């Protein structure tokens, strides 16, 4: 092998490495606008669309709907950018965290309410506060959202995302089981006592009045009694207050109690929501967009009511998620515009929209495919009523740790008779408060 050959090999290797290395900074993973392309969107050639990537947890069917009902429309109507979807239905948070750490995170991400503060506090998200003020669309106006939902996208009073869904928990019921027992359907006059009494009355043989397994969240009942799990100013976790304990004790009186609800063993064996679908549970608390069908795919006659009234309120939990923007996005202004368009599209697809003006019967009914229109049509009034009382968690940056601790040291022990609510709450509170900001 000659010296000349050696030099050529060295030159080829050096060139190849240089080109490969440079590739990342010019247009790494789906190009331009992308986070790993700091100069991408800004230096996009005139007339060429900037490509933004969005990563979501959408499964196959949901991803198809997102593409067809939202993204295709946006991409067809936009000349400045296009949005490319990357679904990561399995190990979602592990994947996006790893991608963000590696500098290849997508421009837009879906985050459930528990995560926004944590990601924002660690500098992973773009502060949208000022960017959104420059956009006229109603979707960009923070004040247009339900305040108790919008707060999940805020961190230290800055906006880090736009909520795209807020599903209030409603009380679904199987009218056939009520009819068979000669009991009137649930309505907005129901309180905890009426609810518990009816759940017991509907329990017989292999049939139960209600079902709980940690869902619906115990927080909801603590709120209804006037208690709180994390205070509004995030400075305390008063789970041992008299009000919070009242809510916890009511929940404890239901969960795994065979006089009204399936035991833990039965739930494990027969499935939580499956028992309701199979007609073995008369009442079930679920999110507003839940649909119920038989194993053969036939829509069931399931109706909805607002959750029963607690001692202080009818507050119901809202499962909320936001779309956030990667802090390293190359073109923040354009990204904010794309985020608003994307969120608006999702608001007309998912229910319930966290935008107050879209939380109405027309939008909700129109959101569902034909198959579900009859079922959801019967439920829509209860869903809209529930939105007026819905709220999300007061989220802290270390929310996952807080949730884990709250489960292990309070809920799990309470549900398994390892202490009274008062004792467990008193023991857990200092540990929970150690995790607050």
């Amino acid at each position, binding site marked *: *092998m000659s010296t000349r*050959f*050696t030099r050529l*090999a*060295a030159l*080829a*290797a*050096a060139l*190849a*490495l240089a*080109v*490969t290395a440079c*590739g990342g900074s010019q*247009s790494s*993973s*789906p*190009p331009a606008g992308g986070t790993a392309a700091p100069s991408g969107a800004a230096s996009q050639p005139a007339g060429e669309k900037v490509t933004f990537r969005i990563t979501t947890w959408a499964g196959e069917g949901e991803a198809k709907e997102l593409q067809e009902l939202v993204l295709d429309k946006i991409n067809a109507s936009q000349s400045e950018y296009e949005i*490319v979807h990357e679904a990561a239905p399995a190990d979602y*948070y*592990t994947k996006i*965290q*790893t991608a*963000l*750490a590696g500098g290849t995170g997508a421009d837009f991400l879906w985050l459930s309410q528990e995560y926004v503060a*944590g*990601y924002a506090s*660690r*500098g*992973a998200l773009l502060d949208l506060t000022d960017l959104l003020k420059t956009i006229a669309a109603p979707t960009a106006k923070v004040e247009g959202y339900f305040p108790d939902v919008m707060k999940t996208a805020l961190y230290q009073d800055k906006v880090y995302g736009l909520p795209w869904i807020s599903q209030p928990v409603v009380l679904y019921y199987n009218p056939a089981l009520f009819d068979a027992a000669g009991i009137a359907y649930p309505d907005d006059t129901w309180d905890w006592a009426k609810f518990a009494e009816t759940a017991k009355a509907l329990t017989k043989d292999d049939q139960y009045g209600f079902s709980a397994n940690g869902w619906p969240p115990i927080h909801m009942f603590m709120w209804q009694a006037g208690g709180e799990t994390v205070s509004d100013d995030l400075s305390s976790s008063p789970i041992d207050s008299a009000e919070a304990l009242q809510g916890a004790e009511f929940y404890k009186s239901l969960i795994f109690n065979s006089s009204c609800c399936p035991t*833990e*063993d*039965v739930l*494990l*064996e027969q499935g939580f929501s499956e028992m309701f679908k199979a007609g073995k549970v008369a009442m079930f608390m679920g999110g507003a967009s839940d649909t119920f069908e038989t194993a053969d795919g036939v829509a069931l006659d399931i109706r909805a009511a607002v959750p029963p009234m607690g001692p202080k309120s009818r507050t119901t939990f809202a499962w909320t998620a936001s779309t956030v923007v990667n802090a390293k996005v190359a073109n923040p202004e354009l990204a904010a515009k794309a985020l608003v368009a994307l969120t608006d599209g999702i608001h007309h697809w998912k229910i319930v929209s966290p935008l107050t003006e879209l939380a109405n019967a027309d939008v909700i009914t129109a959101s569902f495919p034909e198959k579900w229109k009859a079922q959801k049509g019967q439920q829509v009034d209860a869903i809209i009523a529930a939105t007026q009382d819905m709220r999300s968690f007061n989220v802290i940056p*270390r929310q*996952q*740790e807080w949730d*884990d601790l709250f489960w*292990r040291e309070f809920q*799990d022990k309470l549900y*398994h008779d390892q202490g009274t609510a008062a004792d467990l709450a008193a023991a857990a509170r200092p540990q929970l408060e150690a995790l607050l900001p």
Partner: protein
Amino acid sequence: MVQWYAETLVRYVLVAAAIVGVMLLTYRGLRRAGVRREPATGFALILPWFLGFLIWNLFPVVASLYLSLTDYNILQAPNFVGLANYQQLAEDERFWASLRLTMAYSAITVPLGLLLSLLAAVLLNQGVRGVGLWRTLYYLPAILPPFVTALLWRLMLLPTRSGLVNSATEPVWSLFGDTPPRWFLDPDTVLWGFVIMSFWGVFGANTVIMLAGLKNIPKDLYEAAEVDGAGLLSKFRHITVPQLTPTLFYVLILGIIAGIQIFDQGLFVRVPRENFLNVYLYQQGFNFFHMGYASAIAWVMFVIILVLTLAVFRSSTAWVYYEGEVKR
């Protein structure tokens, strides 16, 4: 998108070209340094693997050691905190509880697994009809992914009547006036649930390795023993076991490592209290953003495995027999 895929493809080709270029340079450099043609070619050819080892194995290992001394939270640059993570570990009750569960699991499943796989191998080594089919059947469980096994056993160990284990053993429990265990719902029986689950893998790779070891035992040893009047048990004790000790040693080392590193089963089976150490590590790293702390747990786990492995290695001089070895 098409452009992006095309660019990616070009990049792959360029990386391959770069690697070939570096291999050629290595070869040339070695030759110039006076290395003979054959070893120079060998070194150049293993270069891609060696680079892969450096980048994908050695670097992460060293990096994780550094990260264990930081407060790394995945999303931000790490800050050096010295031994704080290790000090925190010493006071972390959940860490100790997870470690206890993991060590108890290993202490039970490793010897038990060794014994059962040896038994299975001895049975499969008999000249029975259709032995090939039996061997295939015994190996089949090993090809299932661990999470499938975990989900399967979670159903088998359901505490209700649809849980096959409890359903089958209920009459036995009732004989003693007792009820079947609640397995993964009861903190006291979680460990035993996982131990039972571990049997599933016993008949897989370990049995095949043992079987290979049994096949390597010279037949003339058995013949000589028979001439001397040795019985079945005597032959097993004085020929089979000693001759099989290198294999037992190998399987024991692998068993210890696998036992302490158990992860999938713990991740897919929700338990009431503490889970395995690896699951706790994952939770700290990926759920709680404490990657520095998780790295410290990983290094503690590494040290435990290393110490146990070294102990087994040191003890091997006393119980592992290698043919041709001269004991002094």
